[in-house]
């Protein structure tokens, strides 16, 4: 793409304060996740050591001291029941969340683009088979299958990789559908016919006329997928089938928190806040990418913007 084009994208991204704020939040989160070992060392703690002295075993393990045991040694307090350092666990949890979400997004986009292109470019028969398959995948409840699949995987299989594969392999239908639709409508455009008439061989037509036009919707959709995948990882961990202890994860912390919400509210609020801020920032950023890549599109977060295609564009049932 041209410089002029890219400059336009950058200008549109900068013009939206919410996009800038979301980008800043995401940058901070990424730094926190990457720098988790460093920051934990700075605090002088690690995410796995039990601190029995800091919890009140008489009251079932509630942290001693106000606000979940916040102190100079434990900046955000400790985990009830175990006394592990909360600050360190939250940071290491960010690593898991972001790693799994990004990895799963890459898998989803790869499969989605491959299947979508094959359906869009291939024969009528290939198209009908692949589309039908995509429809089935789309109609399956992802979370249910993800949960069920973890039952048959050997216990030794690395969990983050398993989460990436399970989420990635189950939820690529949307990408594939978008790529197929785009390919089909692009194929019909006169400029593609003109390129064929101009004597360009098919691969050249695909590379010069079709793929650049596919990049924008694919990037856009990928950006929208990331927060969805964050929630998917958190949900699986919440159900107790995500990462294995002692690895920390926000969803798993929230799952433990269900028994502590009366005694230690902060233990609910902290991971919840981290999760929410991440998902919101990613959602806002994804929307900004979409509007920046295609100036004709308006923000879809603003309620009441027109989506073009009815119903179909609306996200399918969220994780319940």
């Amino acid at each position, binding site marked *: 793409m041209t410089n002029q084009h890219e400059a336009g994208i950058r200008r549109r991204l900068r013009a939206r304060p919410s996009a800038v704020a979301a980008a800043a939040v995401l940058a901070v989160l990424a730094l926190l996740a990457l720098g988790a070992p460093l920051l934990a060392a700075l605090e002088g703690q690690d995410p796995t050591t039990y601190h029995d002295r800091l919890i009140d075993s008489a009251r079932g393990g509630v942290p001693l001291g106000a606000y979940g045991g916040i102190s100079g040694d434990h900046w955000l307090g400790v985990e009830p029941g175990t006394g592990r350092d909360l600050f360190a666990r939250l940071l290491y949890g960010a690593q898991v969340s972001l790693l799994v979400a990004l990895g799963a997004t890459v898998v989803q986009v790869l499969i989605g683009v491959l299947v979508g292109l094959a359906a869009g470019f291939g024969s009528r028969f290939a198209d009908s088979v692949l589309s039908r398959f995509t429809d*089935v995948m789309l*109609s*399956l*409840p992802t*979370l*249910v*299958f993800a*949960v*069920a*699949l*973890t*039952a*048959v*995987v*050997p216990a030794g299989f690395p969990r983050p990789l398993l989460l990436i594969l399970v989420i990635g392999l189950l939820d690529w239908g949307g990408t594939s559908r978008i790529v197929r639709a785009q390919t089909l409508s692009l194929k019909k455009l006169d400029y593609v016919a003109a390129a064929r008439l101009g004597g360009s061989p098919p691969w050249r037509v695909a590379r010069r006329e079709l793929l650049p036009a596919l990049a924008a919707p694919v990037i856009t959709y990928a950006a929208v997928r990331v*927060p969805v995948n964050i*929630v998917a990882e*958190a*949900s699986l961990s*919440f*159900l*107790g*089938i995500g990462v294995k202890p002692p690895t920390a994860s926000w*969803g798993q912390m*929230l*799952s433990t*928190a*269900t028994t502590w*919400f*009366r005694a230690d*509210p902060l233990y*609910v609020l902290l991971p*919840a806040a981290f*999760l*929410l801020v991440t*998902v*919101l920032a990613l*959602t*806002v950023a994804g929307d900004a990418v979409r509007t920046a890549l295609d100036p004709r599109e308006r923000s879809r*977060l*603003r*309620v*009441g*913007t*027109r*989506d073009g295609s*009815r*119903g179909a564009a*609306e*996200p*399918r*049932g*969220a*994780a*319940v």
Partner: protein
Amino acid sequence: MTGYVLRRLGGALIVLFLLSALVYLLFYVAPGDPAKLACGPRCNAEQIRQVRGQLGLNEPLLTQYLHFLQGLVTGRDYSTGTGVLHCDAPCFGLSYQNDQPVTELLAARLPVTASLAWGAMVLWLLLGVGTGLLSALRRGGLTERVLTVFTLTGSATPVFITGLLLLMVFCAYLQWLPFPSYVPLSEDPEQWAWNLLLPWTALALLESAKYARLTRSSTLETLAEDHIRTFRAYGVRERTVIGRHALRGALPPVIALNAIDLGTMFGGAMLTETLFGLPGLGQLLVHSVRTVDLPVVVGTVLGIGTAVVLANAVADVLYALADRRVTLT
């Protein structure tokens, strides 16, 4: 029309058949020895071999699958060495944990999930379609801002966070509501509703954000169409234009989405049921996965899959019925 419905349902049946094959292969052929799982951790090699025979695992794969399908249609008998356990149709097998037929387990859980789904749906439709319509009529300004924040946070917040916050506020802090525990509707309708209020609300907050956005955008989309201009140009009141013409055009996508969502809910709201400790299908699945109880996993997944596939088919039919512009061929 009838032809379309039949074709659509026929398609759904084919998908269900493929689904059953896929699920069967995935779970009974995948790594791990079902016999070892069924027998339990303390079994020796001899016992495992015995169980393998009882479960018919020595037969060829296709035969096993055919037996499974046959069990679904006619029921099946299992020998336990000492006697014969009969499993009525549709038979998904017996639980490894307690030899109970999976179908019975599912049937016991269904009322809980159904109570959760229907109640939540009523709430989210009221809340979502209501706010969506309201905001379509009052464009711009504060209403739009509030609604933007509501839908954004509502749809971005996982249901277990909303639920936890609700629990903290209403059970722990205000102490207005009990920690939910399921009371059957037939036993005590008042307690039934009272206990389900928090789970319903948690689900409705999540879902209604989506419905508010969809209702609003599809109402505005219809309002921008040319035929609306026609009726305005003929002196029809704005009230009538919106109530009669815009709303009519806005409803089909809402109806279709609702059918799909209800189907998904019927398939078990795993997160909600786990959080609130409701003994529904979702909780059954999570539990059976943790204990690696394969027949229950397969039965639940197939049950949920059926609910979802049928819901999708119903959604398509409803959409076609509601939107007469779709040609039914």
